[in-house]
């Protein structure tokens, strides 16, 4: 796919076709050619996106403007106004209607361009991360000063009103978590920052920690004040040496400036922080395993409940938040909940960091408002597929996310819509795969990861990942049987229902998604003995030389 400045999508479901979508599509092609826009504007047909009141529907990106119902005679006007002159043809817009969560987002976008909106990464690359003066000059520690003058309840109420949800993958409401910990009665409480970012393909937290370490210190201090904690840990994964050094330096500077330690900013509130290094274990990203690891034990997740909010580190109430979640806190405190709600979708306000990876022309980190679609990510931020190969599937949210097929690329990516579509937003990693990748090969890679990282504490995960890996590998060698697919589904379900923690519970997702969206491709390996993408070796282990 070549890079184009605008994308026109014409709905192509049976209803639209009945109402003349084919003619609309054809006319768009003619008119674009006529005005010489065919090189810079791409035209495509899409299937049902869940809206049936204004068919045929035409969506134009990057503004995400929805026109509908569009008839052949409207096409010229849309092309001339919108694509040639750059103005939105207001009178042809589809009525704003929240028919399903999947299209409601168009309302909040108001036809605005989904420009990158930087909240948590706004200082990254603009300040010297090792200089506290630079940080202070860019609004640094102002939110802390403001928070210390606020009622404690007011702080978590602001976060609840802002609708901030945990950015580590689960999307739990942050303000509620803070309220739970603040409500516990204990003389000793802890605040822990989960910086054990090990979800494959995710490096947003590393960028924040390395580029703006003070923002995490400030957010944790606010959190500690709100919940009544006096000690905190930042658990950074062992591989992130630079982030650890920067954090340690930042903590020393903050202490020197009276922003950490005893009587912060002259108040009677005291708080101090430690940086704790991980030692290479994916499972420690699970919050209770992380606590075990700080306590000097093997990182094996605890049984929950009790939750860390009441029984956390050393058995004391503990607030655990992800790096990106915390980085959202100071701007919310400073600018208010209303301001924060002006970004993203009603059900998922704010921005989200995504890491774009795989077979696209641009790979890297972006921060955009919630509710952007995969199609926009690939074509606008990813600048199209590499070598023009067609998009086949995306793997979202690291290993524990979902494999989603090309047909879901118009689903807005926010917590709510993704939940409805049955996929996981996870940590924000987006691995884009073209048609030269085999879905089975991808599933094997993911399963290998789970099998390698399973802590071994509970049986479904320890045995399930091993069995699933062996079975998938056998299929890729041409030794699979059709009944294996049923066994694999059963294993996936058992792991989901019976495992102790998130690792085991999501380990079956690659299998589930593979069989749900790409069953034919897997069956081809078994029935025909060929790998349609030409990736798998299809030679039995015994016959290999």
């Amino acid at each position, binding site marked *: 796919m070549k890079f184009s400045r605008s994308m026109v999508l014409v709905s192509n479901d049976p209803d639209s076709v009945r109402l003349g979508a084919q003619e609309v599509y054809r006319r768009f092609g003619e008119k674009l050619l006529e005005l010489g826009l065919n090189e810079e504007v791409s035209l495509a047909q899409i299937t049902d996106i869940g809206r049936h009141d204004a068919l045929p529907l035409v969506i134009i990106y990057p503004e995400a403007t929805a026109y509908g119902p569009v008839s052949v005679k409207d096409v010229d006007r849309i092309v001339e106004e919108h694509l040639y002159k750059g103005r939105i043809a207001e009178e042809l817009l589809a009525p704003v209607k929240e028919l399903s969560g999947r299209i409601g987002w168009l309302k909040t976008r108001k036809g605005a361009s989904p420009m990158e909106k930087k909240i948590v990464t706004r200082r990254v690359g603009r300040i010297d991360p090792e200089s506290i003066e630079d940080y202070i000059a860019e609004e640094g520690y102002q939110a802390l000063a403001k928070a210390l003058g606020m009622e404690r309840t007011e702080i978590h109420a602001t976060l609840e009103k802002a609708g901030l949800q945990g950015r580590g993958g689960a999307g739990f409401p942050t303000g509620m978590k803070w309220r739970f910990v603040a409500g516990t009665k204990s003389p000793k409480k802890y605040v822990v920052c989960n910086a054990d970012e090990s979800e*494959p393909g995710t490096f947003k937290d590393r960028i924040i920690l390395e580029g703006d370490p003070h923002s995490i210190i400030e957010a944790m201090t606010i959190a500690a004040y709100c919940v009544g904690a006096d000690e905190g840990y930042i658990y950074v994964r062992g591989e992130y040496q630079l982030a650890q050094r920067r954090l340690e330096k930042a903590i020393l500077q903050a202490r020197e400036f009276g922003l950490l330690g005893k009587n912060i900013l002259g108040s009677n509130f005291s708080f101090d922080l430690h940086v704790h290094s991980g*030692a290479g274990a994916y499972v420690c990203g699970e919050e209770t395993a992380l606590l075990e690891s700080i306590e*000097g034990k093997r990182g094996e997740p605890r049984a929950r409940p009790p939750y860390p909010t009441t029984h956390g580190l050393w058995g004391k109430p503990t607030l655990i938040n992800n790096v990106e979640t915390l980085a959202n806190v100071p701007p919310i405190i400073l600018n208010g909940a209303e301001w924060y709600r002006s970004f993203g979708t009603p059900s998922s306000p704010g921005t989200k960091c995504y890491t774009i*990876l795989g077979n696209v022309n641009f790979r890297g980190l972006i921060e955009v408002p919630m509710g952007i679609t995969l199609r926009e990510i690939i074509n606008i931020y990813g600048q199209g597929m590499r070598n023009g190969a067609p998009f086949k599937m995306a793997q979202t949210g690291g290993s524990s996310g979902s494999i989603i097929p090309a047909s879901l690329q118009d689903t807005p990516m926010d917590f709510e819509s993704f939940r409805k579509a049955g996929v996981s937003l996870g940590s924000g990693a987006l691995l884009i795969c073209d048609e030269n990748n085999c879905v089975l090969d991808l599933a094997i890679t993911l399963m290998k990861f789970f099998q390698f990282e399973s802590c071994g504490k509970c049986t479904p995960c320890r045995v399930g990942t091993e069995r699933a890996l062996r079975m998938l590998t056998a299929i890729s060698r041409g030794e699979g049987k059709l009944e294996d697919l049923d066994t694999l589904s059963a294993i996936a379900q058992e792991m989901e229902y019976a495992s102790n923690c998130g690792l085991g519970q999501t380990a079956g997702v690659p299998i589930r998604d593979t069989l749900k969206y790409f069953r034919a491709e897997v069956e081809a390996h078994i029935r025909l003995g060929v790998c349609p993408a030409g990736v798998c070796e299809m030679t039995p282990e015994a016959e290999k030389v």
Partner: protein
Amino acid sequence: MLQVAQAPHQAGREKDLKQIVETAVEKHGAQADAFIPILLEINREYGYIPAEAIRLARKMLHQPEEHVLVSEGQLYGLASFYHMLHTEKTGRHVVQFCESAPCHVQGGRELWKAIQKTLHLKAGETDPEGRFTLKTVSCLGVCGVGPVMLVDDDMYANVTPGQLADIFAKYE
């Protein structure tokens, strides 16, 4: 090929093990939350964690009067659980290849085959001369420039099979 980070190569093994353990305990203290940092430090300084190091560390850490109770089994349990800690002697250089999906899709599939072929090693093996140990590792968080390979502390990104011979030649 892009060399992202460079650090001094694995420190000499000739260092005195007892001294390494003592320094580590002194630096991190003898409370439970220091166990993993201490083991990390021993691993970094000595290259791996021999049984002797665990015996020495346990002696210094076990302080019933301070309510710090620890057994050798517990410390070995930590050393064998965490992937960054090694309990077996490694080669002079450790090659770690990122096996996660992003690198896999971005050319890692072919690279991994080439690495095994160039070094004549499979995952987890050390060559007879004790020059290289080959390991796989989960995501290193630099996926934007994958496939990624670590040799000791040097990170190589956007690696292609053709570059391997030149990279490995740098390590004796």
